[in-house]
């Protein structure tokens, strides 16, 4: 069963990564990042059971905490950018490039 869970985790991670690469809406790209974090958590929980060690679950718990903080700050940044530029597309925020 462990292998199944790990393959599922890899699949979800890949779908999230592809989403980050192809979606231009900042909020959807951000959701794909959350999907990648969730996939990693699944792998952590699976390994915790595989090795009979609770540390994996605790790391997954801390990942959730950090992800919650990250979502708050990231969405605040998106709202700020939307306010000044009237757009939530990640292609429009390119001022630092030049």
């Amino acid at each position, binding site marked *: 069963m462990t292998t199944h*869970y790990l*393959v599922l985790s890899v*699949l979800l991670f*890949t779908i999230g990564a592809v989403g980050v690469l192809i979606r231009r809406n900042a909020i959807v790209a951000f959701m794909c990042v959350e999907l990648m974090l969730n996939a990693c958590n699944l792998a952590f929980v699976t390994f915790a059971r595989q090795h009979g060690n609770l540390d994996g679950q605790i790391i997954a*718990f801390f990942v959730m905490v950090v992800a919650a903080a990250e979502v708050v700050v990231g969405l605040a940044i998106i709202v700020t950018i939307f306010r000044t530029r009237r757009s939530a597309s990640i*292609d429009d925020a390119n001022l630092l490039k030049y």
Partner: protein
Amino acid sequence: MGETITFWVLAVVSVSAALGLVFSRKAVYSALMLGAVMLSLAVLYAVQDAPFLAAVQIIVYTGAVMMLFLFVLMLVGVDSSDSLVETIRGQRLWAMIAGLGFAVLVALAVGNLVVAPPTGLAGATQGAGGNVPAIAELIFTRHVFAFEVASALLITAALAAMVLAHRERSRPKPTQKVLARARFLSDHPSPLPGPGTYARNNAVDMPALLPDGSISELSVNRVIARHEAEEGGLPEDPKLAEAIRQAVEEESK
């Protein structure tokens, strides 16, 4: 046996929901799909001897994070769909190919592993008497520093969100005196006619009738008028449609 069935059902659900997250055109559908993935992952945690994480997943992710996403979607505008212009040529195609290659590579590597049957967490949780006490014991002894740092991180994040989302008022707030003066200087010292006054029903999209029976375009709500004109859903009554069109023109001036 029960775990196998649960796994396969939830694997299909979560992978198809994840695909829907990436490929749906509307951002709200993406958010709902992400919620479906998170719920099925919570059940998978519960199946894998992690009841505490399953509860936290539902409370923190589907409860708090998803609501935050939906709130920001409403703030930013649900209609903000993707631009289909590729800034890097062929980016979508190559992203797909890279994703497929990555998935095949890692899935093959993981699939070829020979793993022993899972040890199970019974041994680890037995001493403390259950999953939650065992996790509590570890968090408050070995990982207590990380726990304190996490609380500092959460406070910092809350402060950061407040600082980032705060907007300074660029001009002073108009007082009642200023507003009253502006109103008497304008053409309409009286309040604007409410929607539906003297009309046959009092829905907000019904313009008010003036005493002579003509339609007052001032009473049509600007937002509704613009929306109806953009969607092409003008009412069939020509007088109504004309009033709404006039209201939109007023707005665009």
